[in-house]
């Protein structure tokens, strides 16, 4: 039988990173095929290639046995491939019908043929058992209904192969059930479905076969009936974990950062972080493991002060800073390495010395009272440039001119030279080359030896296990486990990260403390 989709040796490189490395995938017609992997494993790049949003550097793509080359999503749609994005692309102020036909309006005499559009929409809806009122305004719909509109939109354009990118991320459990019912009906009517997710229970429930991707490579493809959640979790995390560096513990008894019972809501008012408590001592690196989107970002925001927690306390060296401003926290000794340096860390059009001052502009040597101290700032930036090996022609070039690794070293340098009591580091080595990565790790180790407390949020297990004194796992906004990096096994880590441990008791090995203080 010819495969609906066959990918052979797909490779995609970005500067400094290989997103997809010799990926092979075979999706049979009429099956629901899940693609599983941690964030950053290369799932979305693969889907972008499949949907024509990005070209692959190497490899062959076949649709129903024929080799294809997509230069835009239009080509993919022409081949019967449709994509339902994680974030809805709907115009709220328009009706369901208008949203569905947008971009492929049936016309008659140069006008939109409303009757034909509605007939076609109803036909599609009935054929696949998807019910929505074509004349409802999109803004009045529930999240699950909006998703249905997105699916109908894709079917309306004649798609036979559907790609769903983390479709359940935005849904409540009942809506997930409804979605799965719809997907099964679609399957019964002959559609092929590619389902991207990292929620193992759902993946096992809905899919026929599962392909696991890790670090840009396809690990294996398995039958859903033949594996357990714990097996999958282990496949996702990897069978060999890096062993931690044997450095002497520098952990002291002095608690630098104490978080008690913190709950943070996201934009939709749902609890993104729920009742989290942790302690980070001076000289300690506390690693936060977890698949992205489980509340890490919101926890960080609550700690640096850009989002107010609805409950709980944050203390820095015993001082309550729950209500303090970002500036006050910065001045009191919280350093911050953001996960997205371009969005949160740098002023790309400003000079290096201005970037070095950002976040520290209230203190010497960057300022004297009301005035910015240009000479002092430049001098300090030169120092950062030397000590942290930031390769640049000088301190007066714009941050934009630097490579990603050098930008990151500048950020690390500006935070470290300020001698923080607590460093909050989110994915501090994401997207930078191996050399720069090693330097960043060394910088953190050195500061740790000098008594800095570090909260390290990372998706890179090498980094987490290599640097952390203690690892906590965050899942669905809660801390679900506290682990010792010296003794952690792939199975325990994987099952906590993916939530498999909550469903099966099979993973109760290892020294595990539930939700306790770290």
């Amino acid at each position, binding site marked *: 039988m010819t495969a609906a989709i066959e990918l052979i040796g797909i490779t995609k490189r970005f500067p400094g990173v290989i997103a997809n490395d010799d990926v092979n995938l075979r999706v049979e017609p009429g099956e629901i095929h899940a693609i599983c992997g941690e964030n950053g494993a290369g799932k979305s790049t693969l889907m972008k290639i499949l949907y024509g949003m990005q070209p692959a550097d190497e490899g062959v793509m076949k649709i129903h046995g024929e080799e294809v080359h997509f230069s835009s999503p239009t080509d993919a749609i022409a081949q019967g491939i449709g994509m339902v994005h994680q974030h809805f692309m709907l115009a709220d102020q328009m009706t369901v019908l208008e949203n569905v036909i947008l971009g492929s309006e049936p016309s008659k005499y140069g006008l939109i043929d409303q009757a034909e559009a509605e007939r076609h929409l109803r036909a599609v809806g009935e054929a696949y058992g998807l019910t929505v009122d074509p004349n409802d305004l999109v803004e009045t719909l529930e999240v699950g209904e909006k998703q249905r509109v997105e699916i109908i939109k894709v079917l309306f354009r004649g798609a036979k192969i559907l790609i769903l990118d983390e479709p359940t991320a935005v849904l409540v459990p009942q809506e997930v059930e409804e979605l799965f019912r719809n997907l099964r009906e679609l399957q019964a009517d002959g559609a092929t479905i590619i389902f991207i997710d990292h929620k193992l229970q759902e993946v096992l429930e809905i899919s026929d076969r599962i392909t696991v991707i890790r670090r840009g490579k396809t690990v294996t493809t398995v039958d859903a009936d033949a594996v357990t959640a714990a097996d999958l979790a282990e496949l996702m995390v990897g069978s060999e974990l890096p062993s931690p560096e044997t450095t002497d513990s520098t952990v002291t008894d002095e608690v630098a950062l104490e978080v008690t019972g913190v709950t943070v809501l996201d934009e939709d008012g749902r609890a993104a972080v729920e009742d989290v408590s942790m302690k980070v001592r001076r000289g300690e690196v506390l690693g936060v493991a977890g698949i992205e989107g489980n509340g890490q970002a919101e926890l960080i925001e609550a700690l640096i002060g850009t989002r107010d927690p609805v409950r709980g306390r944050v203390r820095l060296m015993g001082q309550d800073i729950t209500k303090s401003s*970002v*500036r006050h926290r910065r001045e009191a000794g919280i350093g911050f390495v953001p996960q997205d340096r371009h969005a*949160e860390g740098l*002023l790309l059009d400003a000079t290096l010395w*201005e970037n070095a001052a950002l976040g520290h*502009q209230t203190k010497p040597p960057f300022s004297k009272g009301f005035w910015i101290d240009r000479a002092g700032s430049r001098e300090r930036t030169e120092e950062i440039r030397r000590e942290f090996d930031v*390769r640049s*022609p000088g301190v007066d070039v714009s941050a934009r*001119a630097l490579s990603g690794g050098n930008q990151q070293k500048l950020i690390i340098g500006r935070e470290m030279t300020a001698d923080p009591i607590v460093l909050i580091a989110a994915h501090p080595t994401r997207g930078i080359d191996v050399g720069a990565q090693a330097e960043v790790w060394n910088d953190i180790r050195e500061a740790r030896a000098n008594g800095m407390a570090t909260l390290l949020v990372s998706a890179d297990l090498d980094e987490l296990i290599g640097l952390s004194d203690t690892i906590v796992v965050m899942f669905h906004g809660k801390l679900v486990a506290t682990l010792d990096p010296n003794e952690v096994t792939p199975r325990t880590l994987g099952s906590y990260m993916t939530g498999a441990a909550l469903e099966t008791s099979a993973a109760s090995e290892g020294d595990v403390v539930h939700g306790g203080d770290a």
Partner: protein
Amino acid sequence: MNTGLLRRVGLAVAAPLVSAAIAILISAIVLELSGSDAVETFRTMIENGTKLESMIDMLNRATPLYLSAIAAAIGFRMNLFNIGVEGQYILAAFVAAVVGAELDLWAPLHVAAIMLTAMLVGAAWSGLAGLLKVTRGVNEVISTIMLNFIAVGGLVAGLLPKFIDDPTATNQGTTPIAESGRLPDLNSWVEVFTREITKGRQLTGVFVVAIIVGIIYHVVINRSRLGFDIRASGMNPTAARAGGVPPKRMIMLAMVGGGLVAGLVGMPEILSDTNAYDQGFVQGLGFAGIAVALLGRNTALGMAFAALLFGFLDSSAAVLQVSNLASSEIVVIMQATILLVAVIAYEVVNRIRQRDEVKRAAQLVEASA
């Protein structure tokens, strides 16, 4: 390194020169199409523009434009599109004229009181837009447009009749401010360097105020922590916030700061010219100021040149009208073309500069590695 510097200076100068050349070309085409003699028109504009009296006129026109540009630029620097300068300065001038006429003080105090009143009114009016944004999330473009209507069409138009000095006059206005509340002209200072200024031209004392405001603007934006916070917020609000810059306070400060300066825009009229708010009070300076700020790239020096250019063109318009050479509207066409071409030219130059910088940094890193 030296060629690099040359290239950078060349690029910086090229943008305005190219824009001016293209604007002159387009205006010439329009002039010829409308049946005027382009060469003769330009010759007359330059000939007239180089006369001392015309230059005084140019400076008088440039002064409020410059103030208005700075008022707008304070917001622009942090991506706050404050287009409410129009309403702020008109309301401020009206209240200042009314208050100034009531007062009877020692001259320097009287003038200071009038200016202060205008600044506070401007700040209050723009602060309202800031408050709406900070507390209710109202977009400042919407609120400042609405506040312009309320100020000009509502408050000033409604209140002016209650303060009319002479109901029989053709141009009804508020009671003129007493001699002590008028700012002396700067003719004697100019005459030190040149000949006597004739035709009753007087260089407004507000000219000095504009220079002082320009210097303060430059120093605060580029040298102070406040300016750093403003620029950081404009360049990357998320990073600024993570860097401890309080976004709401910055919005309030920028709006209020803009309003303070906006209050001064009407001062040449109130302190030097008519000494009252009348029905002929000059309008549209707030919007012209936005154009000047755009052309001057929100920098103190750039806006000064832009204001002088617009002042020169405005002053030419009157001459063209009188000399019957061309319609005075040609000046508006020129201003608009200069602005349009300049915005494009700046963008092009900016991209070339960025590319250069990345290349240069990469080369140096390679050389050092």
